């Protein structure tokens, strides 16, 4: 779609880790607003906070390997008018400090920006302990929390800038590995909006994060199969853009969701809740099915767990069959 200014998928796409976009976005947000500050739990390079730290050392706090402290120091900074971005691996923040986030950010209405990097099985060799899969579910159930999962580094950059202006607690989920950059600097991003990346009428493929690229590739293959798939990219899982999603599903009559995390409570869970109450249709959920990851090369893990274009395509065929 031309108005979204997406990259041309027929060309070779630039690949870049999504977290890199966060690093650039944080630096840019820091330049725009003196109140933007950052805190990290001993993973400054990994989470790409190093750019901000180098430019604004006096606005950077190193809390050490202490994620409970990370979240609550963030709440304290926010209480004094700062806009704190606090980062670690998603497995530890929000994995370890959920209650601190619940009480001191969400219930307390302090706009802490939780940034969880290295989410999903594509973390690879580090294995299951570090492959965070439950973070979307953990953050989505918290009142007042906004959950953002960008699809590429450029979107992560725009999301970070938008988060700095948002007055709510936010969770930003980032992936480690290089991901094809499917948007351009002119692609829109607004918190709470879903975007139709590919138009179609036979099936709606709803995706977030790294799986959006896979869905676009699946749509190409489906087109060759004679199926026109609509791909709806959902970078904000909460609040969910129900209008855009329901409009698409009412048109296509069946759904596939895809995410690099547990479908229970994740994007798949959110869409299932929305559709069950508003417009029940045949549905398949691609994602982690109540199990943990393991060590391996990212691509082999994604294939093994069925988190790729091939499996999205198969799921689309299955769900279309169920329509009849």
């Amino acid at each position, binding site marked *: 779609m031309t108005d979204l200014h997406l990259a041309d998928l027929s060309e070779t796409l630039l690949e870049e880790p999504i977290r890199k976009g966060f690093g650039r976005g944080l630096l840019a947000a820091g330049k725009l607003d003196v109140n933007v*500050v950052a805190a990290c739990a001993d993973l400054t390079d990994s989470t790409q906070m190093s750019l901000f730290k180098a430019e604004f050392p*006096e*606005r950077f*706090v190193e*809390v*050490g390997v*202490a994620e*409970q*402290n990370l979240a*609550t*120091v*963030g*709440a*304290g*900074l*926010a*209480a*004094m*008018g*700062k806009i*704190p971005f606090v980062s670690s691996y998603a497995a530890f923040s929000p994995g370890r400090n959920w*209650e*601190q986030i619940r*009480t*001191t950010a969400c*219930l*307390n*209405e302090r706009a802490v920006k939780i940034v969880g990097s290295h989410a999903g099985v594509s973390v690879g060799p580090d294995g299951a302990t570090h492959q965070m899969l439950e973070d979307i579910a953990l953050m989505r159930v918290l009142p007042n929390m906004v959950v953002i999962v960008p699809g590429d580094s450029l979107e992560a950059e725009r999301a970070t800038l938008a988060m700095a202006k948002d007055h709510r607690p936010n969770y930003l989920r980032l992936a480690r590995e290089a991901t094809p950059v499917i948007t351009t600097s002119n692609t829109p991003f607004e918190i709470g909006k879903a975007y139709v990346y590919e138009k179609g009428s036979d099936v709606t493929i709803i995706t977030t994060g790294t799986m959006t690229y896979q869905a676009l590739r699946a749509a190409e293959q489906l087109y060759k199969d004679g199926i026109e798939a609509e791909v709806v990219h959902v970078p904000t899982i909460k609040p969910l853009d129900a209008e855009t999603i329901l409009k698409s599903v009412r048109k296509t009559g069946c759904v596939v969701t895809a995410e690099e995390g547990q479908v229970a409570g994740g994007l798949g869970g959110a869409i299932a809740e929305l559709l069950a109450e508003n417009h029940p249709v045949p549905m398949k959920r691609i994602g982690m099915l109540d199990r943990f990851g393991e060590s391996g090369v990212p691509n082999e893990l994604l294939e093994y767990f069925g988190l790729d274009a091939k499996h999205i395509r198969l799921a689309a065929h299955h769900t279309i069959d169920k329509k009849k």
Partner: protein
Amino acid sequence: MKKQPIARLEVIANDIREDIIKMLEHAGSGHSAGPLGLADIFTALYFDVLKHDPKNPDWPERDILLLSNGHCVPVRYATMAHAGYFPKKELLTLRKFGSRLQGHPERTRLPGMETTSGPLGCGLSQACGMALAMRMDKQTKRWVYVVMGDGELNEGNIWEAAMLGGKYRLNNVIGIIDRNNIQIDGPTEDIMPLEDLKGKWESFGWHVLEVNGNDVEAVIDACNMAKTIVEKPVMIIAHTIPGKGVDFMESDFHWHGAPPNHEQAKKALHELRTLGGKIRGEHE
């Protein structure tokens, strides 16, 4: 606020204790021992130590007071009402539906309540975050006070914050530990020993003061001294008697998490109003 003589503050602390008993009896649930033990500390803070304005709770230059062990909030509510933050009659809404005085404090419901607390161990780290923000903004004449329980020090989050405060030498943080030696399951040294408590904090890079937390004047002096310590954050270990002022509650851990019933409240109020039988109560 205009400073008042110590004798007057002691009367206020006693009034606050009476209110705590009435509130808890009326609520039918809540914690008795901790709030009673903290009445002198909260009186010292609100009526002498803190820079604050009850009519302008968001005053940008105010000192911040965090209550980390949120279950002791009845003492804060009672003290805030006495200080003029809200009408005293509202105290009897404690823990009732629709009240601003939630069972555990919620910042967004009550002006002047600086943070939401209850789940333990989160106050000191928020204080550190606030102190870091003040430093970034070059606010030097502002302090963050944080009152913690001693049982609460079992929480790992406390010691994460202790390391951070020591690392950044957050000299505008003044912690006050309510060292009353009890927690829900029993004496602190049985449940999870804290001693050598002073040595622990010192080894984390804090300047430690010890004080009788049931002596209003001593608490004021300790806070004033804490403000003169510029090279480190300060932790005041305030030794208090849980249930202070009510003989049958004092130092009995069973009163940590229980409210008085009507008869017990009557007895407690009589004791508080007669200063333990030493004077005739005006209500008799």
